[in-house]
């Protein structure tokens, strides 16, 4: 486990964070740009020194301000994939990859050359100059270089930000494999919610150099702090479930969530998978009686748990639906007309096509 508590000042910017990251697992630092995410990564790597606090990684102290202890960067064994990648331009791909490998203190490499080259499909690129690589290839080389240095902690700074959607979908499986194969803490810095859905076991919300909240994504997705980062249009409950059935004829997957079931497009999903999905608050419809004759495929019964103002003319309604907590954003006038209040039994409707399931193990 990585335990971090750090305070420092640099000019106007003050950073004061404390969080934990499990070994193994992906802990995402999530926040807008300028929240201090990259600063935390630099502090963890020892490229910058905090004024106070401590960093402990799997029982070893890397930094302890009170004792004046600060393990230098080159001895920390932190694999850092920088946002701008920083491949060495004067070395070819193979020598870039070997740079860290050659400098590991113990020769018994847990992360092998052959395995890494295969995992990231780099065999054909080894002789190339870094200038001849595409964006996605550069990304994979940077990742492999960090892995081959035999890190005990992996820092991924916006690993998918510079990449278009199609390339993202090609690269995400690599990251998913890493998460599932490596037994080390991975810190994922991102401002993309989709990265959280697909990769994060744990989320730390950062804003203006402080930790707003931390925990598992489904729980955090309901918190006002997450809404303030995502904005009302992009927020909504994140739920986890298991694909129970794939119906190829209709192209729909049935996902069991608690005791209820949701239908959603089967694209990219297979039977028995664990999936995560976000039910955007603005996409949910509330009915006070069971509706008839609608095209909406998903109807969940539940009980209203909260009604809160959300902006000028809208309210945010919390619903306990068969063991799953959801949030719906509706107009204040609709809430008045339907007399929505805590304790009222309702039906929650959501169109199958508005949902997207993300494989998550």
């Amino acid at each position, binding site marked *: 486990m990585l335990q971090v508590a750090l305070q420092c000042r640099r000019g106007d910017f003050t950073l004061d964070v404390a969080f934990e990251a499990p070994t193994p697992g992906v802990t995402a630092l999530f926040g807008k740009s300028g929240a201090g995410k990259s600063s935390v990564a630099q502090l963890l*790597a020892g*490229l910058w020194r905090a004024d106070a606090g401590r960093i402990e990684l799997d029982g070893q102290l890397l930094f302890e301000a009170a004792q004046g202890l600060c393990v*230098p*960067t*080159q*001895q*920390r*064994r*932190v*694999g*850092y994939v*920088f946002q*701008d990648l*920083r491949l*060495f*331009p*004067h070395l070819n791909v193979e020598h870039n990859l070997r*740079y*860290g490998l050659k*400098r*590991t*203190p113990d020769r018994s490499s847990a992360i092998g050359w052959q395995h890494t080259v295969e995992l990231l499909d780099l065999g054909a690129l080894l002789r190339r*100059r*870094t*200038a*001849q690589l595409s964006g996605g290839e550069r990304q994979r080389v940077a990742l492999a*270089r*960090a892995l081959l*240095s035999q890190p005990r902690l992996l820092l991924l700074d916006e690993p998918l930000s510079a990449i278009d959607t199609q390339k993202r979908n090609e690269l995400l499986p690599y990251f998913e494999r890493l998460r599932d194969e490596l037994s080390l803490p991975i810190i994922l810095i991102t401002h993309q919610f989709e990265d959280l859905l697909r990769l994060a076991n744990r989320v730390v919300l950062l804003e203006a150099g402080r930790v707003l909240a931390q925990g598992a994504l489904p729980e955090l997705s309901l918190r006002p702090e997450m809404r303030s980062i995502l904005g009302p249009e992009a927020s909504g409950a994140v739920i986890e479930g298991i694909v129970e059935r794939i119906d190829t004829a209709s192209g729909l997957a049935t996902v069991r969530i608690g005791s209820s079931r949701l239908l959603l497009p089967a694209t990219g999903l297979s039977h028995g998978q664990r999936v995560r999905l976000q039910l955007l608050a603005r996409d949910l419809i509330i009915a006070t009686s069971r509706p008839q004759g609608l095209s909406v495929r998903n109807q969940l019964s539940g009980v209203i748990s909260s009604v809160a103002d959300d902006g000028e003319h809208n309210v945010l309604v919390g619903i306990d639906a068969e063991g799953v907590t959801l949030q719906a954003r509706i107009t204040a006038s609709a809430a008045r007309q339907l007399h929505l209040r805590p304790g009222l039994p309702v039906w929650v409707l959501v169109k199958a096509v508005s949902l997207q399931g993300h494989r998550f193990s």
Partner: protein
Amino acid sequence: MHFQLTPAEFEALRISLSVALRSVLCSLPFAIAIAWLLTRRRFPGRLLLDTLVHLPMVLPPVMIGFVLLLLLGVNGTVGGWLYRHFGLRLAFSTNGAALATAVMAFPLMVRAIRLALDNVDAGLEEAARTLGAGAWDCFASITVPLMAPGILAGAVTAFAASLGEFGAVITFAGNIPGVTRTLPLALYSALQTPDGEAAALRIAVLALLLGAAGLLASEWLARALRRRMGR
């Protein structure tokens, strides 16, 4: 006019090359270190060091020679000590000529290397450190190779300037045939001699060819280096 060089002129060519080579080889490590200090470190006295290094560019070369003579002459403070303890005499020797040209060419060399160092992304050095490289390892494996074209440019410029240096050399090292008489000094001596115009012309053409060959060679090397670095 035939272009047969006299033995004395060959001697001047040999001494010029020898002085310039010694000058560049000895000052290069210092130039790299000082360029690195001035680019990558903030320390008290940085501005003073910067000024000191650049002084030879704005002072008369004869004055630099005179200062060297005061400091490093056999009766000078440092020079006297060197002579008493090591029997080392710099003034009026080939090494002295090399030292005088090195001081004069030093600012040019530091400038070229600094420019190259400014273009080396400090982020690459950070990346090297996260991959387990210590400070020296990182400097040798990342910084130096990336600024190699700049080091080369600095060395070539300094070499060319050393070939041409006159004032500082003649003041500190004298104009001794076979010891410190470099091409420009030989040219000056030829002009002082009656009927020396033919010799002066030969030396001038020789200096011209040498300079042009040096520039061509450096350009070719720089291109090769850039290719090697994939740029």
